[in-house]
């Protein structure tokens, strides 16, 4: 196991080069370059703003565009990273079949290249934050840590799905639907506070809000982003995420990473003949 990790470390330049390749190829021939990757979240932000401030005005959330974009950008990173990582091994089959290198580099590199896109989109978010006069507080120092946690979680998921997709090609198709559902189940365009604390389902009292966070690490991660960048829907300024809450999120994400890596390494030796 340690040998594998050492090998992965030795190939770090390949990881770097693959990320650079992804970015270069993506932006090489478009005039607007990476601006295109902003179009989608910005458009969604506008749509949600219109829907929730004009069409469903009874849910009043202050500085709604900032509220939505703080969640949309991380979600977008997660979504694109997972989708492209799922295909990464199969898509690079020509490489996998002809050259040896630690295969985990492929899904990991797609996660990082999408992370780079996420970073490139952040200035727009900060512009919006300044525009809406959301105070910048020391809670912002948590931002890099939250990103690391999200990357760990995303890589974990990416490794599992990339493996699955080698053996069952419709994983990618199914994931499109799953990601859509996941998006709606994650408090992106609505605050988690609107969820009832408990709800009677089939005669059982279900702690719905807690369950959302427990079952969905993305909900916790996005809540953390929101907490340090936007604050709260009652208008209180950004604060550091609660210690208990945040440490649980970290543990979950690391667990996901470890499980993902184990699953991947368990099957990766068969990729050469299965791709």
């Amino acid at each position, binding site marked *: 196991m340690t040998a594998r990790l050492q090998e992965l470390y*030795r*190939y770090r*330049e*390949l990881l*770097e*080069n*693959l990320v650079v*390749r992804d970015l*270069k*190829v993506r932006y*090489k*021939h478009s005039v607007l370059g990476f601006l295109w990757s902003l179009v989608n979240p910005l458009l969604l932000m506008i749509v949600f703003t219109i829907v929730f401030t004009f069409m469903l005005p009874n849910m009043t959330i202050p500085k709604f565009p900032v509220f939505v974009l703080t969640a949309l950008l991380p979600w977008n990173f997660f979504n694109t990273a997972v989708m492209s990582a799922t295909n990464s091994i199969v898509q690079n089959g*020509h*490489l*996998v*079949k*002809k*050259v*040896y*290198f630690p295969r985990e580099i492929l899904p990991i590199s797609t996660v990082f290249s999408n992370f780079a896109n996420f970073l490139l989109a952040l200035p727009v978010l900060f512009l919006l934050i300044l525009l809406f006069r959301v105070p910048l507080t020391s809670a912002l120092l948590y931002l890099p840590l939250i990103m690391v946690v999200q990357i760990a979680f995303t890589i974990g998921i990416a490794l599992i799905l990339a493996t699955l997709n080698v053996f*069952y*090609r*419709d*994983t990618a198709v*199914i994931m499109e639907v799953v990601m859509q559902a996941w998006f709606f189940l994650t408090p992106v365009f609505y605050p988690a506070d609107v969820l009832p604390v408990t709800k009677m389902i089939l005669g059982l009292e279900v702690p719905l809000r807690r369950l959302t966070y427990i079952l969905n690490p993305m909900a916790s991660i996005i809540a953390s982003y929101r907490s340090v960048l936007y604050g709260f829907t009652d208008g209180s300024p950004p604060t550091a995420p609660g210690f208990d809450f945040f440490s649980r999120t970290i543990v979950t994400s690391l667990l996901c990473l470890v499980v993902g890596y184990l699953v991947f390494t368990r099957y990766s*030796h*068969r990729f*050469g*003949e299965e791709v």
Partner: protein
Amino acid sequence: MAIIEVAHVSKCFHLEPDRPRSLQELVVGKFSRKPHPSGSKLFWALKDVSFQVNAGETLGIIGSNGTGKSTCLKLLARIIEPTQGTIRVDGRVSALLELGAGFHPELTGRENVFLNGSVLGMSRREMAHRFDAIVAFAELEQFIDIPVKFYSSGMYVRLAFATAINVRPDILLVDEVLAVGDQSFQDKCLERINALKQRGVTIILVSHSLDAIRNLSERALWMDEGIVQEDGVSDMVVARYLQYVHDQDEAAALATRDAERAAAPGKVATAQLATATAPAVASETVAIGDATESNGRSKHKPAQNTAGGNGDPHSDPRSDAHEEKPTAQPPAQEQPTVDPDDPMGQYRNRWGSREAEILDVRFLDQKNQERLALTTGERVTVAIRYYAHQRIEQPMFGLAIHRSDGLQINGPNNILAKYDIPYIEGEGEVHYTLDVLPLLEGTYYLTAALYDTAGTHAYDHHALMYRFRVYRGNVEERYGTVYLPARWQHVHPVIVEDART
């Protein structure tokens, strides 16, 4: 010291045509009543293969297609893992299994070199160090900063090869990728591989080019059906392999010929009647036969009738099989397409008055065994069997060997050779023996003919009717068409002076 150790390695591939490739198929499969095909096909690409390679050694792997050579390399490159057994490889492996596998068309040559370098496990600094050498080797100085999608395929492959070969591996695996670029680039590649060899790089080479194997590696491994047939000095292993291929070809060729003969028994019967029975019946049969025959054949009709009148019936299926050959020709003549295995087939022809006939021609080796595949340098006898329906005084037997493009190589006959055959009558055989077959590897055609003494009247002329192959034997020469026995001598200037004084 063994740098590579392969111990009792077997590799099994599951060949399941209906393996569920999607979740849907998997679910449907689970619920369907049909039991899972328990006998899913297993294919053992390698069976208990063991060998070691020492540091600095060059090993060539040879064998026919599908015998496990590439599987072997893939295992060494760690692209796939063995089903059983262990493989130990110490050192950096660079595998040239496919050139430019990691190239991205949108990136420039420069970017791709660095990317490919890191795929092969090189650091950016190491690559920067070698970059100029790579570009110079690929001869792409002017084009290195344009995307490789604009490269010609030759440029692409050159850059890929230059990158792969310049990563200074400890172990280089090469799978049949030496045949890239033009001749001068190929020479450069071989030179570079030789240079790596000099530097102590361990090289494992899979190739169908036995020359490349013989030239580059001292040791060769012959794989057949997943097992190591032979492991030893490359010259010896290659020779054994050639012998094996040769024997197989021989057996296949003889089998096809026998099958052809067996397939035409009816025609043999009519032909036999035509040549051997009463004139009335014969003419009738020939007439029927002629409807399907070439013009060349009909020329001899009257002669055949006379022959039938006084000749003894002979019943050799072989001769008749040959007689059938021209019959099969006309359709081929109408088609302009040329069979690559039989380029001169359309010129095959037979004519003559047939007072005497050539029944068949066989090639005999030194043990008087019939052969269709010969080897350069061996003793070969061309045996021309004839049947003379009447006594012919001092006949002239001749033959000619043609290269597959039609070039005539020789054309001897017994009159020129001052070998007197007083007369022929009935059945007999004329032998033309070459103590050292001088033909180099290739396909050749033999013409056999029987004329009168002056060489003006053709009794029977079989133009290009006998095709045979020659394989390379112990003779090392391989350029051109023929091997001319000769001696080399280095005449030292001192000796010349001595001679003058």
